[in-house]
Structures are given as C-alpha cells and as structure tokens.
C-alpha cells in the first residue's frame, strides 16, 4: 500500500454503490414477502435464493466497486497495473450481478408459474 493515494469518498462512484446497496436491501425485503407467499402455497422456501442474490450483489458489486473507486482510480495515472485491476474488478462486478439476477428471477418465475395454475 506504500505510495498509494486513497480517496475514501469518491463521487459520483459512491452514488452507484449506495444505489446498488439499496437494490440489495430491496431484494431482502422482497425475499421476506416471497417467503410468506411461497409458504401459503406450500412450496419450498426458494426466497433464500433472493436473499443470496442480495448478498452476492453486495459482495461482488458494491464492495469491489468501492475498492476500485477509492484505490484503483486515484492511482491510475501513476501505476499502469491499476488499469488491469480495474478490468478484473469490473468483470467480477458484472458476473456477480448476472448471478444475482438469475437468483432473483428463478424463484419469482416459479412462483408465478405455480400460482397461475
């Protein structure tokens, strides 16, 4: 970490990070409702997947994006390796978002299928 500039409150990156954090919390709230609805129709507790999606979103998008904006971006001019880290973290972030999206979509679709019968 020697010689690294760290910007703890990078704007506007912080806006995105808080936004995605809010989406994750929205998923937690949604998981609670979905859990109760699944219980009524006596189906497995698939709401766990939605909760996992929220956790995945925080671990793979919010935290890496914060690290990238606080550490990698401020040091981009002086250290070429930072660009490589940025690309790796970007890939991790969107792969995480992809996994989280699938985890949200599956139980929701199943609920809609089950209740349409």
């Amino acid at each position, binding site marked *: 970490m020697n010689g690294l500039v760290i910007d703890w409150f990078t704007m506007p990156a912080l806006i995105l990070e808080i936004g995605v954090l809010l989406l994750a919390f929205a998923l937690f709230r949604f998981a609670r409702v979905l859990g109760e609805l699944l219980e009524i129709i006596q189906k497995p507790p698939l709401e766990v997947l939605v909760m996992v999606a929220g956790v995945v979103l925080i671990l793979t998008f919010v935290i890496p994006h914060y690290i990238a904006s606080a550490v990698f971006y401020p040091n981009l001019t002086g250290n070429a390796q930072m660009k490589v880290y940025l690309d790796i973290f970007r890939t991790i972030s969107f792969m995480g978002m992809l996994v989280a*999206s699938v985890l949200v979509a599956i139980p929701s679709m199943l609920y809609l299928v089950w209740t349409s019968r």
Partner: protein
Amino acid sequence: MTNLLSMRWVKTGVGVAMMLLAALAFAGSAAAASPSVVINEVYAPVNGDANAQWVELYNRSNIPLLLDGWKLRTAQNEYPLPSVTISPTGYLLVTFSRAGVTARFTLSNGVVIADLGLDAGTLKPSADMLSLVSPAGLIVDQINWGQPSNSWKYYNSALWNPGIDPLTDPSKSIGRTWTGEGKDTDSPSDFTVHDPPSPGSKSPFAKDPSDLLGRPTDYVSWVAGLLLWLGFILAAFIARRFQALSGQRTYWQALLIAPSGIVIYTIIQGLAYSQNRAMNDGEKWTGFTILFLSAVLCFYVIAIFSQIAKRYLEASK
C-alpha cells in the same frame, strides 16, 4: 405511508421522472463523443533534455487526415503544424527539434515526423498544456499536466485542475492507456506513464480494448443489467398477482416502472465502454444518479408491498 403513493401521484411523478431520465440519458450519450485525432503521447520530463521533447498525435478514424491549417498550442505558444497527412489509425510525431529527438531516440521505420523547426522544445515539464486546434479554431483535443495557471496565454476553463502528474523519469513518457478505439474520457486518468516511450508508433505498453476481459465483460454487463431489471419486473408481477388474489392494492404499477433506471444505467455504461472503454464524468453522474433514484423507488415500493402483504397475511391467519 401508502397515502403518499396515490395513483395520481405515481402517474405524474413517473411521467416527469421518465422525461427527465430520457433527457439525462441523451445528455450522457452526447457527452460520450470523442475526437478522431487525439494527443496520444508526450515526452517532456522534468530534468530531461528540452531538445528531445516531442508530442505524438493519433488518428483514431478510418480516413486519412491532412493537417493543413492545424495548430498545436502550448501554454504560451502556438505552432502551425506542417501540412502532413496522418494515415487512418496512424501516428504523427511532432518534434520541436528533429535532430534533438533523433539523437535521443531510435525511431521505428516509417515514423511520420512533423518538425516545428525549433532549436529546442518549449514545453514546461512541471506544468504546461497542449491543445490541438483545427483550421476552424476549435480545440479538438487538449491535455495538461501539473497545476494550470490563468496567467497562461492560452489558459481556458476546460483545462484539468490538477492536470496529469508531471513526468519525472526521462526514460519514460506520458501516454494514453488504450490505443485504437480506446479510452478517451477527457480526464487525466486517460493517461499513464509509458515505459518505454514509443515516439511516432504504437506503444508496446498500450493495450487494445479487446485485451484482458474488456469485450466479454461488456456483453455480461448488458445481460446482467437487463436480467436484474427483469428480476424487479417479476417482483411487480408477483405484487399484481397478490393484488388480484387478495384485493389489496399493492401499487404494482409503480414497481413495474421503478427499475427502469437499471436499464438506463446499463445502456449508458454499455455504450460508454463499447465506444471509449470507460465512462466519462458526465456519463458517470448521469448513469449513477439514475440508478440511485431507481433503487430508492424500488426499495420504497417493495417496502410498501411488503407492509401491505404482511398486514393482510397476519389478518388472514
């Protein structure tokens, strides 16, 4: 809480929000445009030989560009560029003193040189600027390093403050991180230290956008963003079904529209990365703010749905 979200309020609010989002998205995409010729690499190190200073231009387009009438500005001087042509996706080495540069660097074969015919470079290594000015007098590209000063003859408000970190090592140069259709966000972060310098030719340091995980990640980002949006849309359909079954108003229409910001963010970042390999400040502010507003709405409406469902289910038990 639910009174606040009457349908009239929702319709009006959502309408205004969507118009605002569309306008912001348009502004963001307009800001993404970048010039076809850019200042690509600069050699003016602190404690370096002024005779050896040079500037490299790069033609990003697929057509040849004749530099007749073009000018290169520094903080205090303006130099007409010789009438040379930069080939498509080609480089031009602008030297202040051709002899000084060739004495210091071994140039690759075929390097096109535009010599300004001076005895030595006039760039100030600690702080200076470079503007590429078209025959019409428009600044096509501009960079600066160190602290800009409004006492400079060609000072303008578009200069970065602070600029790129001044180059301290005479064995290196300052250049763009990406070549080709690469990164150009009009910010100092577009530039990094190049080791070794590559006057008039492609830097072995600079990477093509297809390197690393760039392109595959672009595709993943599109799919991920759209799927996340779909996830919230499905939540809206669940709220709708709950309303149909229970007779309780769930405001599912609001939940249907709330995640739109996720799609807009996905489009802005996707276009920015496919064009410039990065988001510029305008795109970041636009995309991030839209996603944030969308997230607040999603959280708010899902919280309402959650509360209504909980109350109804408790009453039914």
